[in-house]
């Protein structure tokens, strides 16, 4: 039996046991046994444990701990992808498939929202349904943005780029992926149980008084956070300890640096969102009083704890995308990455500051007056380390020899979009401006410019850049460019007018708006449909290339970094023997540099 099926089975059994036990205990205590809240909560936790044990934790860890012979999952071909496999490349692809699927699903939800918003008044949804669709879209997308790049490319390419054979903890790596399916299943099931209507931020008291579907969000967020923590432990340890000889910190490819810094944020801050979710759930099912004003609780503290994670989370989304963009820029300009150390310092500065800006989401929340100005100051100063990324990018382009292949187009487009996103962010951080702009479509414009325009463009730059390496086949460059131009143009046509809408009084999270704003919204919606359609070209291109594209060379771009020094796709243990790193990854045109690394043919 494929481990996924056993996991599902054990998961369902766990759910039934946990839920049943809870109902039983409640019954014994003389309470109403079948209440959704606690039965579902405990059932889920048992189900999660059952799932993990079934999918592979039992066979590997538990058997070993109990002194039995572990039975790691060893399969060939497509079966590898459906079990607890430890090969980082398989795990990368598992992440990629899962999260691209979620991305398309959430994108389709966005299309539904745009149909509703195409004209004022109520069209295809009632307001309750709209809120639920909006919440699911936002939350799925946030999970995609936080996880897709580290999960897919971090896992696949960090070990390759540093010349390692695998991650430091291969089994934990598998665990970090297999924690995800329960969260994904929760979210996919949520619409059938009514979904939840409190947005991706789930502020109490709304999140305490709305329908029980709210718990799908809380538990999914909690589960995803768990995976993030496990994954970041692995990245940090891998990058510190597993570098090939000669791969000094100063020679680390910038993408690896971005994953390193990102992991620092997800390692620590994620615990806060876990706690926020936990407290909300307890308020719902266990009559605690954390955030419930009816029992004397403090709803604003939720916002502090939530944003202490969720602000760093936006850099968790963005930083790996910057890494990809700089990586692509340097290779496609055939130039050393400009001001490499400053770019790394930029990542470090953003990481450090990201912990100190959270309250800029709360400028109108009624938090103590003394907090506003300091948080405005920290938020605005984060532009400076972010600016270093742009410094590096522009310097890399200057005097280069640019090759405008699809990945390069996405990197350049992403930089351009993120510039607008960053600048609109500075408007948000400005206290007087934010009093008006907060919770309007201006903010929606801001974060789609940063997340979609920056992080998702970075993701696609990465997909086009590394596709030949991961799949071993080449896609059609023509279709790639067509996708880029459609996506780039219509992305801007969708999200720039939203800034105007926000300025003109269109608030967020609404299925209806003043009739005057109908025209611009119709324009936005139509652009959004074309933007959505552009992904069909992408899908077609990828599927066709996978099925019958020309076989890719080991190094189709002529790039220096180590992942290109092995076959496409790489063999199970990446390199025939341990590579010896001899010079920097971007030393193009440096006569004395020689190759980046010597990879012995056979040990």
């Amino acid at each position, binding site marked *: 039996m494929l481990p996924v099926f056993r996991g599902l089975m054990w998961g369902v059994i766990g759910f039934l046991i946990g839920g049943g036990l809870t109902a039983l205990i409640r019954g014994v205590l003389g309470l109403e046994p079948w209440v959704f809240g606690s039965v579902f909560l405990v059932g889920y936790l048992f189900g999660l444990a059952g799932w993990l044990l079934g999918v592979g934790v039992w066979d*590997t860890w538990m058997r*070993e*701990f*109990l*002194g039995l012979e*572990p039975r*790691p999952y060893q399969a060939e071909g497509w079966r590898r992808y459906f079990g607890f496999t*430890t090969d980082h490349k398989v795990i990368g692809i598992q992440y990629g498939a899962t999260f691209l699927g979620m991305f398309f699903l959430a994108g389709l939800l966005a299309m539904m929202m745009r149909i509703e918003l195409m004209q004022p008044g109520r069209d295809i949804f009632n307001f309750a349904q709209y809120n639920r669709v909006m919440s699911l879209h936002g939350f799925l997308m946030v999970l995609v943005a936080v996880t897709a790049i580290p999960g897919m490319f971090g896992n696949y390419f960090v070990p390759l780029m540093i*010349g*390692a*054979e*695998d991650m*430091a*903890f*291969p*089994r*934990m790596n598998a665990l970090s992926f297999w924690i995800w399916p329960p969260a994904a299943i929760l979210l996919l099931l949520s619409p059938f149980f009514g979904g939840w209507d409190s947005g991706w931020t789930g502020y109490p008291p709304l999140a305490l008084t709305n329908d029980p579907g709210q718990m799908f969000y809380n538990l999914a967020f909690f589960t995803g956070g768990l995976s993030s*923590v496990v994954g*970041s*432990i*692995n990245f*940090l*340890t891998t990058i*510190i*300890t*597993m*570098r*090939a*000889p000669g*791969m000094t910190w100063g020679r680390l490819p910038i993408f690896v640096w971005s994953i390193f810094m990102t992991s620092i944020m997800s*390692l*620590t*801050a*994620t*615990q*806060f969102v*876990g*706690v*926020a979710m*936990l*407290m909300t759930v*307890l*308020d719902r099912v*266990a*009559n*605690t*009083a*954390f955030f419930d004003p009816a*029992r*004397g*609780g*403090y709803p604003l*503290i939720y916002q*502090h*704890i939530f944003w*202490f994670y969720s602000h760093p989370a936006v850099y968790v989304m963005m930083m790996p995308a910057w890494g990809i963009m700089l990586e692509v820029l340097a290779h496609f300009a055939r130039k050393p990455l400009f001001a490499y150390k400053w770019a790394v310092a930029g990542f470090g500065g953003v990481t450090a500051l990201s912990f100190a800006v959270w309250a800029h989401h709360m400028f109108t929340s009624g938090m103590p007056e003394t907090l506003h100005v300091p948080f405005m100051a920290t938020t605005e100063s984060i532009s400076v380390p972010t600016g270093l990324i742009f410094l590096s990018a522009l310097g890399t382009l200057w005097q280069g020899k640019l090759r405008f292949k699809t990945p390069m187009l996405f990197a350049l487009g992403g930089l351009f979009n993120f510039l607008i996103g960053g600048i609109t962010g500075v408007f948000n951080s400005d206290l007087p401006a934010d009093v008006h702009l907060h919770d309007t479509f201006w903010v929606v414009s801001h974060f789609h410019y940063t997340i979609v325009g920056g992080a998702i463009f970075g993701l696609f730059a990465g997909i086009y850049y590394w596709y030949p390496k991961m799949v071993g086949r080449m896609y059609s460059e023509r279709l790639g460019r067509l996708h880029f131009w459609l996506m780039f143009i219509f992305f801007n046509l969708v999200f720039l007018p939203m800034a105007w809408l926000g300025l003109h009084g269109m608030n967020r999270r609404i299925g209806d708006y003043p009739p005057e704003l109908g025209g611009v919204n119709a324009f936005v919606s139509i652009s959004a449909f074309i933007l959505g359609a552009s992904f069909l070209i992408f899908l077609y291109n990828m599927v066709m290339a996978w099925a019958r594209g020309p076989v890719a060379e080991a190094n189709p771009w002529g790039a220096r970094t180590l992942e290109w020094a092995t076959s496409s796709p790489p063999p199970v*243990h990446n390199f025939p*023997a*341990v590579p010896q790193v001899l010079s920097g990854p971007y030393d193009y045109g440096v006569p004395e540099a020689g190759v980046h690394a010597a990879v012995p043919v056979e*040990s």
Partner: protein
Amino acid sequence: MSGHSHEAVYEGGYTRLQINRMGLWFFIISEAFLFLALHAYRLLALGTFKPENLNITLAGVMTIVLLLSSLTVHRAEKAIAHGDTRGLLRYLLLTMGLGVAFLALMGYEWSIAFREINPSSPYGSIFFLTTGSHALHLLSGLFILALVYLAARRGAYQPEDHWGVTAGALYWHFVDVVWLSVFLILYLV
């Protein structure tokens, strides 16, 4: 972490032991942030408010029990480092015993607290959540030590290779330090 078949694995000049240790440290840092978040709630929402009828003496006794257990687990590790498996087993048992004693005291404390501190008030909520999270960590520490104990009985550890013991001990120390912070933030501040 075993399960690696490939021979030529290069680990950047780090030994497997060092790598494992580093991973565990990152895990501990992460867990520390969990308790930081709980403490943040307590301090942000309630400042230094605390109900009068907190049983500080009992908590003090619990602190001492847990500190003692840190000592014994340290001795356990020292024992195996010198090849003394029987000493290891003895000290592990002692540590687990102290852990169980702590949990029993905690249970007693809870049974009183349920009456004296309203769990449906902000302080009560954070009190039970924090101490409960800590108890859960302690419980998982006990579980790990039990596994280590079983493995030790099978003779799985040698003086030069006893990562399991080290990991268990490190985690136990961590749970201990967390209790100190809980004691400080919930009872003393």
